[in-house]
Structure formats: C-alpha cells, structure tokens
C-alpha cells in the first residue's frame, strides 16, 4: 500500500508541474528585441565595454554579480566549515591517492609521470590563460568569473605537483588575497553611493574612455576573489591542511 501511495504522489507531482511549465516553455510570443537594440547603440558609450554581456553583468546589473559573489563566499565558507570538522573526524581512512597532505602522498613509485608533467609544465600556462581571460573580459568573451575559475584550476594543478609548492598554493596566502579582494569589491561598490552616481555606480564617470577602467577593476577583483576561494576549497577538499 505504501508503495502505491508513493507512486501516486510522484506521478501527481510530475504531471501537475509538467503541465505548469510546458505552456511557459512552448509559448510562441516573439522574443523581445528592445533591450538588444538599446545595448547595440549605447553599451559602448555607457560602460566602455565592447563585450555587451560584460557591460550588463558588471555595468547595468552589477548588483546581481555582487549577490552572486556573496552566494559564492557563503557557500564556500559553509563547505569549508563542514570540511574542517570532517577532517577532524575521519583523520585516518582518507582517500590516500587523492590527498595532498605530505605524509599521505603516495611514494614516487606509485605516482604516474603524467601528474608531474601536468602540474609543473601545464600549470603556469593555464595560470597565464586564466589571467588573460580575466583581464580581457570587457573586450573578448570572458571576465571575472570565468578567469577566476581558470586561475583556480591552475592553482590546483600547481598544488598537485611535488616540487611546485610555491607561495601561490599556500592556503593562508590564498585566504588573505580572497579577504582583501572582497573588501576592495565592497568599497568599490559603495564608493559610487557617495559620488552621486549611486550604489554600484561608476565613481569615475567623467570621460567615456575612463569608464571602461571601472569594469576592468571589477573584473580583476572578482576574478581574484573567485579564483582564490575556489582554489582554497579544492585544496582543502584534497586534504591539504592549512599552510601545508
């Protein structure tokens, strides 16, 4: 009896919600072109960004990006909180081949050569590409988030290698960069409030040539913030203790 009730409940739920979203997905109303036309003319002059998508998510609708950075910060802080006391409980049977902690790293015999090549040779290239994507966000496709995530994966590559333990892969340093970039981001956002151009306004709204710098600044800060926080989480996930 319990089984059939379970099936009835699920089919009812699926049926109702399928019927609820089907008309919305299949609606034949023509897609609005007003905002696309406006951006085609004004995006460059307003925000100085050639890439209209960056001009939206860092210029017109910058508050969404701030909200998104907050979601990233809170969820990574929460995950780290759970990881830390997870680490405490399951100290012994952690996945050996996957861990970074020096004493748990497999001896050289087991380590495949691939990991060495990837981390030492490929890591810096990916790092450079990550910074490129971050800095050219307002011209070519890319921007703060994408660049940051690529930088994070580069840092993880470097952390995996044995002889590439630089300052960059030290979780303390990464944590500090993350905190500083978050503080600069909030100051940059609120600075607009006091310069009449409003919250997340562009404080240096003088000439149009200067206004692009605000987007570049935001791109760099968000890129650093995203990059370092995801890198810290991945390193913590792989068992690298603080400051290993």
């Amino acid at each position, binding site marked *: 009896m319990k089984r059939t009730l379970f099936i009835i409940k699920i089919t009812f739920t*699926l049926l109702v919600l399928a019927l609820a979203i089907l008309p919305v997905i299949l609606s034949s109303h023509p*897609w609005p072109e007003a905002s*696309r036309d406006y951006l085609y003319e004004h995006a460059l002059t307003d925000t100085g960004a050639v890439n209209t998508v960056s001009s939206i998510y860092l210029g017109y609708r910058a508050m969404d990006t701030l909200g998104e950075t907050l979601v990233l910060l809170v969820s990574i802080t929460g*995950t780290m909180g759970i990881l830390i006391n997870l680490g405490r409980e399951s100290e012994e049977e952690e996945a050996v081949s996957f861990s970074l902690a020096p004493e748990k790293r497999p001896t050289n015999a087991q380590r495949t050569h691939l990991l060495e090549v990837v981390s030492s040779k490929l890591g810096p290239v990916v790092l450079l590409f990550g910074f490129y994507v971050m800095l050219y966000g307002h011209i070519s496709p890319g921007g703060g988030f994408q660049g940051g995530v690529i930088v994070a994966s580069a840092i993880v590559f470097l952390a995996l290698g044995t002889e590439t333990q630089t300052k960059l892969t030290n979780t303390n340093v990464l944590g500090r960069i993350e905190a500083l970039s978050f503080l600069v981001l909030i100051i940059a956002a609120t600075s607009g409030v006091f310069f009449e151009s409003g919250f997340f306004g562009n404080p240096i709204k003088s000439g149009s040539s200067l206004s692009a710098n605000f987007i570049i600044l935001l791109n760099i800060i968000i890129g650093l913030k995203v990059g370092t926080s995801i890198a810290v989480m991945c390193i913590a996930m792989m068992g690298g203790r603080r400051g290993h």
Partner: protein
Amino acid sequence: MVIERILIFLLALIGFTAIVGAKNIIKKVFGLNILNAAVVLLYILEGSRIGDQAPILGEGITNMVDPVPQALMLTAIVIGVCVTALALALAVRLYKATGSLEIDTISERLRSEH
C-alpha cells in the same frame, strides 16, 4: 524550433524526477544539476533566436544576439554550482554520520538517535 524546446523540457523533467524519486542523496544533487543546466539551455536557446552574431560589438556586427539572458545565465550557473558544492558537503557529512547514502535509511537512523 519547437522540437528543441521539447527536448529541453524532457531534460528538465528527468532532472526533476531524479530530485523527487531518487533514493540516493547524491543522485538528487545530480538531478538538481541537470535541472539547472536545462533552464540555462532554455534561456540561451530562446535568447539566440533574434540574431546570428555574438554579442561582442565590433565592425560588421549588425544583427547580434540578445545579451540579457546570457548575462542572467552567468549568474545562474555560478549560483547552481555553489549550491551543488554545499549540498555535496552536507551529503558527505550525512554519510559520515549515518554510514549510508539512501535518504530513508539516513532519516531512520537519525530519528532514533537523540
């Protein structure tokens, strides 16, 4: 055309069925991920109907795609990944506490433990 949207609708339906019906909590997080990917696909597919060039202003760009849904979906993808990361951390913590990944055994074992 309409067939693509029906495929996206089916993808969303599969993801939603997994969230509701799957017993394994990590399968539920897979379902959430797929549901998120389906909605992102829907926005971008419909947003790109009105043009045929990438939304990067340059010479020779006359008929560009609607950049607004693309900007929105950047946010939605990152939020989806953050929520997935948190859900998986909670799922691992539940596994460590109860030794099982099936939602019924987990709530059974937790209910008895005061």
